[in-house]
């Protein structure tokens, strides 16, 4: 810290710190604005006098969106997709990653190439759509999960982690008469919990955020996940009434309803973020695709 003593260095440090704090504030400001607007009353929204903190507080917007059919149903769909999809993707990714982490496996390089190649080139949107259609997934919620079973990048992070485990673990299990399935479930997985937790959260966030597959593969509005509904409400200013039902409640101001739907779609990601953040930097750097 010798350099810190000069005035120039202190001024530099101060300006640098302030600039970074400003950047961080600009990053979170939109969240705070949306969050607090969702609790504002119509009078205050109309007066547009606040940026961050409203002086009045009301839950009308939330009461309204949860009185509709569409929002609770979309939340349910998204929660279901996220839970089922994460479990499925983890199962199939861990199995594949473990197989490919075995250095002595004949054909391993070829299988690995088949996976990596899909990151470089793919059949594109329309041929994939036709396969989804032919496999009978069109307009089924499974269309959001099965065609996205493995994210090759995530699978490779898992594989890299498995390869880093000491060889002795597997060998001692073999001596004790464990077969490969036993080794995976009794030894490799329990020893890899940090990696497994991180990749699970990556998958969960991806499934929660799923949008494109939903608009491509689902026709039925009652199957929409929350992201599609959000888009519909914000941009097309419709969606809450897709079933043409008449709601007796007088809707609160459109603006705070929109804000409330954004909050509802964001909160689950915010909730897992602290857990995610603990490991992701490591995970993001592990992704080098070697050997």
């Amino acid at each position: 810290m010798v350099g810190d003593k000069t005035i120039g260095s202190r001024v530099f440090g101060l300006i640098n710190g302030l600039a970074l704090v400003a950047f961080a504030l600009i990053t979170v400001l939109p969240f705070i604005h949306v969050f607090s607007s969702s609790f504002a009353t119509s009078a205050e929204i109309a007066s547009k006098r606040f940026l961050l903190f409203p002086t009045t507080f009301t839950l009308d917007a939330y009461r309204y969106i949860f009185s509709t059919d569409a929002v609770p149903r979309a939340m349910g769909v998204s929660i279901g997709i996220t839970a089922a999809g994460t479990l499925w993707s983890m199962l199939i990714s861990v199995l594949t990653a473990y197989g490919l982490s075995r250095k002595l496996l004949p054909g391993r390089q070829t299988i690995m190439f088949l996976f990596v190649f899909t990151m470089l080139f793919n059949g594109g949107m329309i041929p994939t759509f036709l396969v989804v259609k032919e496999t009978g997934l069109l307009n089924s919620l499974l269309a959001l999960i099965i065609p996205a079973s493995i994210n090759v990048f995530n699978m490779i992070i898992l594989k890299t982690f498995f390869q880093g485990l000491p060889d002795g673990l597997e060998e001692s299990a073999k001596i004790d008469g464990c077969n490969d399935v036993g080794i995976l479930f009794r030894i490799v997985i329990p020893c890899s919990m940090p990696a497994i937790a991180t990749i699970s959260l990556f998958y969960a966030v991806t499934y929660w955020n799923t949008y494109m597959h939903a608009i491509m593969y689902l026709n039925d509005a009652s199957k929409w996940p929350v992201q599609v509904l959000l888009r519909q409400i914000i941009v097309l200013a419709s969606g809450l009434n897709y079933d043409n039902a008449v709601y007796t409640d007088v809707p609160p101001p459109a603006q705070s309803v929109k804000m409330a739907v954004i909050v509802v779609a964001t909160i689950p990601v915010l909730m897992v973020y602290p857990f995610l953040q603990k490991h992701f930097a490591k995970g993001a750097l592990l992704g080098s695709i070697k050997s």
Partner: protein
Amino acid sequence: MRDSGIWDCVLPMGGDTMHKREITGRAGVLRSLQRHKWIYLMTTPGLLYILIYKYIPMYGLIISFKNYKPYQGIMGSEWVGLAHFERLFSSPDFAMILTNTLVLFTLQLVVFFPIPIILALMLNELRSSGLKRTIQTLIYLPHFMSWVIVVSISFVILTVDGGLVNGLLESMGLQKINFLLKSDWFRPIYILQIIWREAGWGTIIFLAAIASVDPQLYEAAKMDGAGRLRQMWSITLPSIKSVIVVLLILKIGDVLELGFEHVYLLLNSANRQVAEIFDTYVYVAGLQQGQFSYSTAVGFFKGLVGLVLVVGANWLAKRYGEEGVY
């Protein structure tokens, strides 16, 4: 069975060479399948998945040379050769899409690319590790938000109908601006959203590179009287130069990947002339208008160019002396 297990444990290397000899014959292949049967069984679901949802669609690209009719099937549809590709290249849309692609890519390269580097250099200069961690936590967060959420938040803030920004403009006595429907605003909004979502996240790789710089270099520079700005310029930046160059090259390989979901969410009839890119064009022509063969041809063209660019970029990165990614 018991025997081979013991051999594996005691002499893993010996086991391996023996095993290599084994697989030369057909009996060897069978024995190796038998020996690793559980492992092959475990990779089967993953392989089936990429076979069905990744490799069969590659075979499906054949419809870009045909006039695909769903009821005739892929094989039964009429062969038209390169007609769809000719149609693409002679269409006025092609010039529009190519221009938009190049403009958006240039924005990413010139406006976005330097920002994570600058942020990483600045973060590295923070003396308080608590403050540094707090700032990192805040600026990594938007990366996990879907594009729908990013675009929705922008929308409610920018809308003329009670949005924050237009409210401020109005209170300052200025004209309201319809940011969302003015095609002039598409490009600034596009790049600002990318900066907001990805700039913080992008610092991770540069921070890792900075962390591996030899601290002795800084000590030596201090002895020579270099200030902090000078150290940043003359030590940190040159030390991470190779990482920057490699990421730059790889970014160029991704010129066609401009974010389908992001652009699609911003796209409307008012800004189509500046916003349409290959992916959105494929989506509209294929899934909304049902021109399966033509849109597949467009996607195929984009995919091939993308493949050449990525492989070329990676080759270049390796030549530059780095290990590349693939």
